[in-house]
């Protein structure tokens, strides 16, 4: 009885200590948090690192879990009081329905323990922390002990076997936990003292522990072990010794871990310590019980079950923290290794943190050169005002993207950079600063400038070329005029002397002059596509085709051709006269290259594709061999030298279509007709032209017209 009293008083004191600690704990926590805040502010103005942020997080965590901790701790004194009361009352009566203990033990002790043991094993494998290994072994012992004890409460074991196994398991478990506590307190947290690899260690330890329990079970069943309890009277001396030691060890371990928690604030240690305390309390109840299954015994069991739950919480928290840390690590490595310069600044612009790229971009080699300084030191003075404006905007909008500034390196060299910024906020949504991402765009700008230069050069060259073609064709016309003039004069004034041969020669001269004129006209036209483009209008293609059909009626009839228009055809936005030229040329071509063997059939249709229209003009004529499919679009190229025409038609079509941002191509086989395709974008956008005639329309110049004109008449094309 004395022993009992001493133990319970010791217990009580101890628990008052932990209970009291919890009060002190809270007060200390509060004080600490104020201090931390001061320290934080201090550090902020000097420049603080990411770790500070972490501490802030921990502080918040403690603040929010304080009520939870209060409850968790409060359970312990509650149990102690209950047990003390029950001990004094000494209620006789056993409540031990069969299988109940088994079920409860299995659930709360065994299953829980096995779960805890496996998570512990995982934690140990990941982090090599000895505490976990020992914890795992400890709970494994307890767990298996509880399981087996539960099985054997009835025959063939009986209450003594139950107690023997359970208590011995408890003692062994306590030894493990205590070892763990001692090592942790001594600062030995890593497993480097173990020779073996982690996996091997676990493989050895866990089954080893289980093997021991098995042996224990067998021994106990055989009666090899002296009794621990006499049902109805109470525990034997041996029983008391074993249990007492176990309780003491659990208690000590609990204290040690609570002390560790004060220092390091690791949540795991908090819950572990409480768990151990609960188990200690529970075991002491078992110590006091006279019969297995008495109310006090049940109180003890409950305490242990709760302890198991606390253990589960402890390892789960560590497990989750571990995962959090991994993702934190990922984030940190992303931050550190990002090629973009990331800088974290506070509301005053002082640099709190930055990554390696941010150092590089500023020409600095270490963080000391940057942390604590104001970000504006690295921005050119001329951009300061703009930068402030942008920051203000960032506050309003939350983020701001891609603004160009002139940055300064540590040595004052200027370079262009693109910045994006966003606001950082605290848990209440108040802005605390900014994250600024900068990218050095010197190269980019250089490339841009180069591109602009090249484009300008290209356009200049194009203009030059077009103007050249224009001039040349112009200059070529003058002699043609003379040729024609003189040959006509020759014919008029000397046609008597000329005779038939002479007349024929003159006629050939004039025919060739006309041919050359046509060539030049086409060339001029070609050169003019880029220079003079008429107004864009909405063209009903069907109407346009009907017009062309009428114009070419004579040729079509002569060729015996049938023109089929596949309706519906869309309304396109383009230069009307140019479109006219395109269709007219394509149809004319079809007529020119018809086959003798069959009546010509020309089909004009359109297919709507995504973003553009694909027109086709298909014929059943003589076709074009694949090797010529590119050639035919080149100016002056004619596949059939006998053919009439200038060989410019398709070149003109190509230029017009490409000017409208479309493509033209042919599908054909020799002897099997040809299909000319061309595309027009849905919203016709003309390429940039040097000149655009706003009010006058360019039309094909067949022959120059000469009519007397006065001021009010506009010239007709």
């Amino acid at each position: 009885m004395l022993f009992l009293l001493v133990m319970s008083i010791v217990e009580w004191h101890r628990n008052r200590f932990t209970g009291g600690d919890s009060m002190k704990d809270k007060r200390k926590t509060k004080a600490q948090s104020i201090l931390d805040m001061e320290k934080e502010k201090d550090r902020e103005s000097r420049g603080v690192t990411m770790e500070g942020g972490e501490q802030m997080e921990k502080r918040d965590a403690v603040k929010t879990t304080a009520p939870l901790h209060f409850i968790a701790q409060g359970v312990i004194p509650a149990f102690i009081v209950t047990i003390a009361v029950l001990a004094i009352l000494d209620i006789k009566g056993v409540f031990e329905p069969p299988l109940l203990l088994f079920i409860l033990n299995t659930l709360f002790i065994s299953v829980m323990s096995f779960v805890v043991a496996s998570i512990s094993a995982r934690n140990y494998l990941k982090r090599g922390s000895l505490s976990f290994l020992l914890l795992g072994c400890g709970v494994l012992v307890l767990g298996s002990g509880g399981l087996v004890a539960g099985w054997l409460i009835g025959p063939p074991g009986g209450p003594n076997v139950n107690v023997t196994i359970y208590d011995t398991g408890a003692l062994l478990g306590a030894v493990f936990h205590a070892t763990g506590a001692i090592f942790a307190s001594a600062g030995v947290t890593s497993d480097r003292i173990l020779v073996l690899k982690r996996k091997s260690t676990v493989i050895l330890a866990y089954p080893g522990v289980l093997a021991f329990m098995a042996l224990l079970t067998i021994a106990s069943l055989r009666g090899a072990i002296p009794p621990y309890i006499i049902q109805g009277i109470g525990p034997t001396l041996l029983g008391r010794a074993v249990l007492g030691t176990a309780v003491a060890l659990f208690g000590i371990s609990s204290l040690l871990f609570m002390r560790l928690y004060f220092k390091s604030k690791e949540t795991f240690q908090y819950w572990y310590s409480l768990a151990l305390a609960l188990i200690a309390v529970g075991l002491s109840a078992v110590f006091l019980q006279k019969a297995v299954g008495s109310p006090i015994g049940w109180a003890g069991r409950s305490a242990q079950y709760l302890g198991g739950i606390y253990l589960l919480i402890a390892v789960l928290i560590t497990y989750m923290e571990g995962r959090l840390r991994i993702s934190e690590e990922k984030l940190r490595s992303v931050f550190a290794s990002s090629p973009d310069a990331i800088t974290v600044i506070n509301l005053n612009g002082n640099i709190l943190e930055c990554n390696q790229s941010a150092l590089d971009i500023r020409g600095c080699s270490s963080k000391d050169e940057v942390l604590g300084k104001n970000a504006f030191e690295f921005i050119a003075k001329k951009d300061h005002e703009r930068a402030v404006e942008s920051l203000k905007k960032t506050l309003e909008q939350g983020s701001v993207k891609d603004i160009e500034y002139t940055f300064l390196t540590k040595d004052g060299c200027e370079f262009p950079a693109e910045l994006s910024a966003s606001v950082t906020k605290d848990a209440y949504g108040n802005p605390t600063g900014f994250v600024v991402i900068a990218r050095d765009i010197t190269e980019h700008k250089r490339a841009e400038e180069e591109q602009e230069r090249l484009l300008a050069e290209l356009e200049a060259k194009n203009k030059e070329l077009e103007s050249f073609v224009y001039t040349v064709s112009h200059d070529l016309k003058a002699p043609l005029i003379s040729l024609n003039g003189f040959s006509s004069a020759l014919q008029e004034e000397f046609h008597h002397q000329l005779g038939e041969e002479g007349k024929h020669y003159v006629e050939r001269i004039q025919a060739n002059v006309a041919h050359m004129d046509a060539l030049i006209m086409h060339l001029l036209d070609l050169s003019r596509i880029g220079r003079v483009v008429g107004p864009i209008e909405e063209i009903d293609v069907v109407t346009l085709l009907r017009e062309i059909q009428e114009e070419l009626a004579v040729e079509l009839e002569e060729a015996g051709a049938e023109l089929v228009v596949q309706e519906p055809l869309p309304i396109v936005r383009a230069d009307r006269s140019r479109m006219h030229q395109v269709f007219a040329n394509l149809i004319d071509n079809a007529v020119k290259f018809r086959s003798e063997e069959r009546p010509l059939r020309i089909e004009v249709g359109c297919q709507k594709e995504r973003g553009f229209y694909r027109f086709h003009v298909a014929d059943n004529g003589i076709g074009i061999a694949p090797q010529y499919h590119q050639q035919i679009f080149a100016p002056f190229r004619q596949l059939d030298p006998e053919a009439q025409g200038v060989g410019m038609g398709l070149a003109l079509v190509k230029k017009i279509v490409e000017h409208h941002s479309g493509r033209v191509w042919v599908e054909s086989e020799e002897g099997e007709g040809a299909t000319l395709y061309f595309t027009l974008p849905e919203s016709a956008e003309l390429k940039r032209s040097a000149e655009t005639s706003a009010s006058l329309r360019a039309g094909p110049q067949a022959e120059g017209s000469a009519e007397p004109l006065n001021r009010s008449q506009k010239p007709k094309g």
Partner: protein
Amino acid sequence: MDLQSVNILLVEDNPDHVELILRTLRDNNLLNQVHVVTNGEEALDFLYRRGKYADAPRPVLTLLDIKLPRVDGIEVLKRIKADPELKSMPVVMLTTSADEQEIVESYSCGANSYIVKPLDFDQFVKAIKAVKLYWLVINSLPT
């Protein structure tokens, strides 16, 4: 009105074209009154009666080619139209192409007409004849 006494200034640098134009005008009895200069500078000298053209008569009509050496046809046109004494004189631009830009320019500078020298000489003849008729007969010219 006596058509014989009408003075016409032809500003054309291409000798072949000059010949052809003169031929047409001869066929229509205007040859002896056509004065030919071959560049823009001389055209202005003629009109302002400068240098060797001190005794030049005032032409009643100017046929002006657009493409000229030294002083461009359009430039000559501008100068003529800028001068209070000359600007009432009708100017007909001759050119090888009906390029719109040129048309617009000549109209905004005050040309009275614009003829494209066609390859078909009959057309050309008709054109010149029409000019003659139009300006000399239909219009009442200030004397």
